[in-house]
Structure formats: C-alpha cells, structure tokens
C-alpha cells in the first residue's frame, strides 16, 4: 500500500536509514561509555566507534581523519568555521565575502560578525542561481580574510563552482569555507583536490540522525580557529563537549552508505525527477527556478504562476513539500533565495520545492487508482510520476 502523504521534502530532513538506526542502538544501551574515559574498556570501546565513524566521514570527502571535528550539525559547523576563522585572523583583515542565497546559518552568522566589527559583502547570483566568477573576483579586497559559498543550495539545488572559487581564494591567501550540508551523498567531494579550507556537514540530510554534524578543518596548509565552545578540550580544543557516541556512529554509517550507494541512487533519483518534471510541464505557466544542468537531481523548485504557494500546498495535501511563499513563513517574507534570482515576488510566492530521496519510488500506478476523485486539481497527474517508498512498490 502506498502511504500518504508522500514525503517529497528530503532537503528539510531525511529519515534515518534503518541500517543506520540499527548500528546506533547498541551505543545507547550496552556500549554507553564516554569516549573520553581512558581508564577502562567502556571508554575504549566508545572511542574506537567514534574513530571508525570519523574515518567514514573523512573517506566520503577524501580527507584525513585528523581534519574532521564533530559538531551538533551544519549550523554549528558554519558558526565555528566563520566566527572561529574571522576572529583568529582578524589581525590580517576584517572583510568577508558570501552570497545572498546562502543558508541562514551562514547569513546570520555573518550578521553577527558585522556586529563584532567585521565587514561582509553579500554577493548577488545570476538568474540561474549561480555565482558569477568575475563578479566574485571583483568583490575580493586586500583585507578579505574569509569567503563562504555553499556547495548545493538547499532551496533550488544548484551546484556552485567551488573548485574555481577555491583556486581564486588560494591564490590570494584567503580562507575558503563551504557549507556542504546539502551535498553529501549527492555530489562527489574530493578535498584532496579542492582548494577548500573549511567544510560543514550535517548527518540528517544524508539519512543519519539529527543533532550531529562535522566541520572539516584543513591541516595542509593549516587552518586555525578560535573555539566557540569552551570546556574539556575535546576535539583538540576546537569543540568541547562529551561526544554523543550513538549520534556519531549514526553519522559514520550514514556517510559510509552514501559513499557506497551514491552513484546508483543518483541515477534512480534523476529518473524519478525527470518523470516528475515531465508531469508538471504539462501544466501552463510553470517555471523551474534555478539552473537545470548544474543542479542535483534531488531538487525541483517550481513556480506555479497565479497560484499562491500556501493555498497550493493545502490543495496537494497528499504531498509533503515546502513552499517559498511568504504565507508559509513566520516572517511573511517570500523566499530570499528566489528573490535573489530576480524572481518577482508573485513567482516566489507561488513556488513549491519538491525534493526526492532514497525512499522515493515509482508508486504512481497505485496512487492513480485512488486519484480519480481528485482529478479536479492540477497536480493529480504529477502524483502518477512519483510515489512514496514505504513499500518500494
């Protein structure tokens, strides 16, 4: 049986893969030791599990284990990277560069740095959502110390040219931070090749548990940070706090599975995305937001002109999706990401984000059988394209 509503909001969060959950459980109950306990086997066992997980995170992005620092998620990683680097290198300069379409965890951290006396340039993007490299280069100054650009955008799924940006930054001795929360398991990341100094990760966007993430901190050339959390000196002083072994084990297993299954999974999801897009393209006045080529297959962000997003969500209540409409946000502002693409407010207002993932599957034929009663609403036929994975039907 197809389970309703169908979850198409994988960029908000993903379910924990059952294989991941299974691996976590022993670390809650039997193997509960504190990885920092050096004097007995409970601690050693937990420490070994933490280090194995660190190995898996490092392998997914081709980094060294010593470069991985555990955090509570990408929000904390972004805070540690930006505040930590800006504060440590404040003597070199006071200027940072980022992009208007970044996640709030970057933008609001930059706002806080402005209050602390730093200067931040927030760059526009082109109407395809991508950063223009000439414009980027022009924004750099002699006193620029940190640049932050995300790898995959959470709203429109576009992939920023971080390899090129990294080269430009390295040549000028500027630190480069990348928020990769939405990228792991979706695009290949090779930190041995990329000129990236700091990279943020989150487990819960990649079938791991919520509340755990990591920050990559490059060793060669070495990157220094001011710690933001003080205490027992865990994580080589970068981030104090008792390590949540079960969460870390979950992130490690999730990232291991991502490494092994990414290729096949992306192909399958691309096929589903194409079917969904085909179904939606039959509707008039439908616009895709963001570039379709430089984009992860998991994301379709579409504006349905003349229909307000929140009321559209209410009409398609069998789909769990999100909207860039002002009416769905507490602040009553339409999506700042879509506005940065130059979309008029009305189109931002009428946007729906569909994000597909591991447990999305072709279940349309089942749903179609139930759909006749709903033929009056335009998205009925799109349901024929994609279904929920509960039964992997």
């Amino acid at each position, binding site marked *: 049986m197809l389970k309703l509503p169908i979850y198409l909001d994988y960029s908000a969060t993903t379910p924990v893969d059952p294989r991941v959950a299974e691996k976590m459980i022993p670390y809650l109950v039997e193997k509960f030791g504190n990885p920092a306990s050096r004097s007995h086997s409970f601690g050693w066992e937990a420490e070994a599990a933490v280090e194995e997980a660190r190995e898996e995170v490092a392998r997914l992005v081709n980094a060294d284990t010593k470069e991985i620092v555990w955090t509570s998620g990408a929000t904390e990683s972004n805070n540690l990277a930006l505040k930590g680097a800006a504060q440590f290198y404040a003597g070199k300069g006071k200027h940072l560069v980022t992009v208007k379409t970044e996640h709030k965890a970057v933008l609001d951290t930059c706002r806080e740095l402005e209050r602390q006396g730093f200067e931040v340039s927030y760059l526009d993007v082109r109407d395809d959502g991508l950063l223009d490299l000439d414009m980027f280069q022009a924004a750099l100054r002699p006193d620029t110390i940190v640049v932050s650009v995300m790898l995959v955008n959470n709203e429109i799924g576009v992939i920023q040219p971080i390899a090129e940006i990294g080269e430009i930054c390295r040549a000028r001795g500027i630190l480069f931070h990348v928020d990769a929360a939405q990228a792991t398991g979706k695009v290949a990341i090779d930190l041995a090749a990329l000129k990236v100094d700091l990279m943020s990760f989150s487990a819960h966007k990649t079938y791991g548990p919520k509340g755990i993430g990591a920050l990559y901190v490059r060793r060669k050339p070495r990157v220094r940070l001011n710690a933001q959390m003080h205490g027992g000196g865990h994580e080589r002083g970068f981030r104090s706090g008792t390590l949540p072994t079960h969460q870390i084990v979950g992130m490690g297993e999730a990232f291991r599975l991502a490494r092994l299954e990414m290729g096949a999974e992306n192909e399958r999801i691309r096929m589903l995305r194409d079917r969904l897009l085909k179904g939606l393209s039959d509707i008039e006045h439908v616009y895709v937001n963001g570039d379709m080529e430089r984009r992860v297959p998991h994301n379709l962000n579409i504006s349905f002109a*003349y229909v*307000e997003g*929140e*009321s559209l969500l*209410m009409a398609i209540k069998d789909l769990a999706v999100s909207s860039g*409409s*002002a*009416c*769905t946000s*507490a602040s*009553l502002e*339409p999506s700042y990401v879509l506005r940065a693409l130059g979309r008029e*407010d*009305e189109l931002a*207002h009428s946007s729906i984000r569909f994000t597909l993932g591991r447990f999305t599957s072709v279940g349309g034929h089942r749903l179609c059988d139930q759909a006749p009663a709903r033929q009056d609403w335009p998205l009925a036929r799109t349901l024929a394209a994609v279904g929920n994975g509960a039964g992997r039907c």
Partner: protein
Amino acid sequence: MSYSVKVLDHYENPRNVGSFGKEEEGVATGMVGAPACGDVMKLQIKVGKGGVIEDAKFKTYGCGSAIASSSLVTEWVKGKTIDQALDIKNTQIADELALPPVKIHCSILAEDAIKAAVADYKKKHSEQVSA
C-alpha cells in the same frame, strides 16, 4: 502550523466565489492587498432596497486563511445593511476561524475588503444621487 476544521471547510468548499457583471445594478467592489505578505482580495457586494446586501462574491489570491476569511465574510454580509456590514470586525473573523497569530492579518484583509466595498458603494451611490 495546522488549520482549524472551519478554515479547511471554507478552503475546500469556498462559498460565493466569483464576480458580478460590471453593469449589474447595485454592485460595488472592494479590492485590497496585505502589505505584509502581498496577497490580494476582491470582495463584491450587490446592494438592494434599503441598503441591504442581497448577495456577495469574492476572489482571493492568498493563503488558506485569506481564502477562508473572504469566503466567511461573503456569508456574513448577506442580509445585512451596508452599515451593519461595517460592524464586522477582524477579531470576529479570526475567532470564528480560530486563526493562529501569524494569520491575523489575513482576517484584517477581509475586514478591509468589506470597508472598501461599502465605500465604493457609497461613492457610486452619492454620484447617482447628485447626478
């Protein structure tokens, strides 16, 4: 945030959607927008003898609360005189629909739509009288 049964009912079975012909006798139109979110609401009333509202219709580009608020007021204004209609307050609409705090402005939009429609009627009516 989840909506009340009443909002969902008005959303799924909106009352009096549409508009009257431009030349119909006694028709007045109120068109208002919410600066907070950019939504737009059009309310039309058809006023008969003694200033009694005989019929009403709406069209709304907006959220579920805005649609429900406008649908509700088309029911409420019917049978009222235009001056009685002006007594409808957004708080009554918000109470009836159990709107959450962020959606109060949607009920204000509906109250404003009534005021705008009545003002339009009075303007046209006084023009007719003076002509």
